[in-house]
């Protein structure tokens, strides 16, 4: 039985639909990210779990208890805001202890828990400081400790890192994940950053325009995007329209070149158009005499991206990216060269719609 369950959720603001057909089951201790562009309904969904928004339709349940109509202060759900939202008039220790003070726990119990939380976020010395005396990263760690201090059933994080510098973002996300693992707490993490979602999550819910596009592990989302939206939103991807040549054997045609796919083309007729996607790293130069999926191309551009080199090639009139690992002994082609590229049948993904 799932620990957190969102059933058939729909949320309207007036006539505008912010979220619809949202169904999700999250296991205890799981780390799930909501990933999607700004305005796709991530925050609204999160706020329905916290109780700041009431779903127009649908139910929210935690540990088999329906909390759909409970007030936010009657739920046991911790929230971390993008803007930290620390109380400026309280010290770090008072901020972390606030929820416990509201719950009328004893002074000694509060102190013990606050010290424990300060140790967890490695800010043992900062208890007496005020939020304004801390860096952004430290403030967000305090906000995390404050949310965790009340031992919430579910931890919600709404783009907690987007106000921070790139370097701190990366280290803090690892820290958040480590803390979540250590405590075994169920977490929902909202982000618009695909790299962040891929690196931190057990599962990702990719959202677009208020609905779920795909739910899956980072591995599944990256390697097997099911829709054109997911394909384009997560990672760099070459997408193009192909024509079905032989649906039984998975033969397609793009710009005069033949490509074979390992995916089923059930129900597709010869001559049908389908959208296919190929990750740049799945392409390579066709050195040996391979038969299938070898296509002629022309080198258009070469870009160094540090650990990888991104080569743009044209196949017919279409342009595609191809990534290869950088190494000092790499023999790079020259712009304008004619060459041949290849990819495995499994690399050719056929997208829904």
């Amino acid at each position, binding site marked *: 039985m799932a620990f957190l369950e969102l059933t058939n959720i729909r949320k309207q603001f007036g006539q505008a639909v912010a979220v619809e057909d949202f169904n999700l089951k999250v296991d205890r201790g799981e780390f799930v990210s909501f990933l999607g562009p700004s305005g796709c309904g991530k925050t609204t969904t999160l706020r329905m779990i916290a109780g700041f928004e009431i779903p127009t339709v649908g139910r929210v349940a935690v540990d088999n208890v329906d909390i759909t109509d409970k007030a936010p202060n009657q739920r046991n759900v911790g929230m971390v805001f993008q803007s930290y*939202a620390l*109380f400026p*008039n309280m010290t770090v220790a008072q901020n972390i202890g606030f929820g416990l003070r509201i719950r009328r726990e004893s002074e000694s119990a509060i102190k013990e828990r606050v010290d424990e939380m300060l140790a967890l976020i490695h800010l043992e010395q900062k208890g007496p400081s005020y939020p304004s005396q801390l860096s952004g990263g430290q403030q967000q760690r305090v906000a995390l400790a404050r949310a965790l201090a009340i031992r919430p059933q579910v931890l919600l994080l709404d783009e907690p890192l987007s106000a921070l510098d790139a370097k701190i973002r990366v280290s803090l996300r690892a820290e958040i994940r480590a803390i979540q693992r250590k405590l075994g707490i169920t977490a929902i993490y909202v982000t618009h950053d695909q790299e962040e979602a891929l690196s931190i999550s057990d599962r990702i819910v990719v959202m677009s325009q208020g609905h779920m596009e795909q739910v899956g592990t980072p591995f599944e989302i990256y390697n097997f995007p099911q829709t054109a939206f997911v394909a384009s939103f997560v990672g760099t991807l070459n997408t193009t329209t192909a024509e079905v040549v032989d649906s039984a054997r998975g033969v397609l045609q793009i710009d005069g070149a033949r490509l074979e796919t390992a995916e089923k083309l059930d129900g597709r007729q010869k001559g049908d158009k389908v959208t296919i996607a190929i990750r740049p790293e799945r392409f390579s130069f066709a050195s040996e005499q391979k038969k299938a999926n070898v296509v002629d191309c022309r080198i258009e551009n070469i870009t160094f991206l540090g650990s990888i080199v991104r080569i743009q090639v044209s196949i017919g009139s279409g342009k595609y990216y191809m990534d290869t690992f950088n190494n000092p002994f790499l023999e790079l082609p020259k712009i304008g060269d004619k060459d041949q590229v290849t990819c495995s049948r499994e690399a050719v993904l056929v997208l829904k719609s």
Partner: protein
Amino acid sequence: MAQATQNQIRANSSQRSLVIRNLVAWAGVVPFLVFVILFLFWPASSLITGSFQNQSGAFTLQNIIDLFTPSIMNAYMLSIQISIVTAIGGGIFGFMLAYAVIQGGLPRWVRTALTTFSGVASNFAGVPLAFAFIATLGHTGFLTALFADKLGIDIYNLGFNLYNFWGLALTYMYFQFPLMVLIMAPALDGLREEWREASENLGASSYQYWRYVALPILWPSLLGSTILLFGNAFGAYATAYALTRTLNVVTVLIGDQISGNVLFNPNLGYALAFGMIVIMAVSIGLYTWLQRRTARWLQ
């Protein structure tokens, strides 16, 4: 060697540019200094010296001693009382109004309208204000008559009197609460919605949010604006003067001594004003002390 000389030259010229930059920075402050000297220090110092001089210009403590006569002490008491009452009353009313408009989810135009009204009303004081109130709530005022005719209620029989302490306080309130609205609006804007949500999320009720978060955060502004309202009422002159001749606030006494025909003694007037400065200084001191004690997070 040549290198050293060049460095020396560079150091000199950079020193010179530093001096110039400092001069330029100071030049910007000059208008402010001139203003402060001309309109603050100079009048204040002449006022203070005047308090310690008799009419022929010799040093005396008589003016200060005269401040402790019962009628003058009563005037100070009255001024302080009316200032406290209208600062707190106008403060509470103005705060609630500002809160309703800013955080209460009212349409945007209500706020614009209230701010515009407050801008005007907070400056609507003196003789016109007094006459407006006399015309509305005086013995034969418009509202007084309306109550009598339509409802059969004689508000003066019920104990209302525009010309006593509470009548004057009511009149002062008319310029006090709009000032509060104007000062508190930005402070309330600064009250972030996430703080309420964070506190709710941690289990706090609305009361607990106000008690532990919102009021402590607003406290410095509340304290500051109350002291400003206090000063605003304390220094008001023409409203009291035009409304009633039986309630002698300090400013009315000063007016009598400086421009009156009967009681002309400008030096006593200076001493009265000096006393007001002392009272304002004490209240600002009190304010600063309270602020330091209660809002350590601001430092």
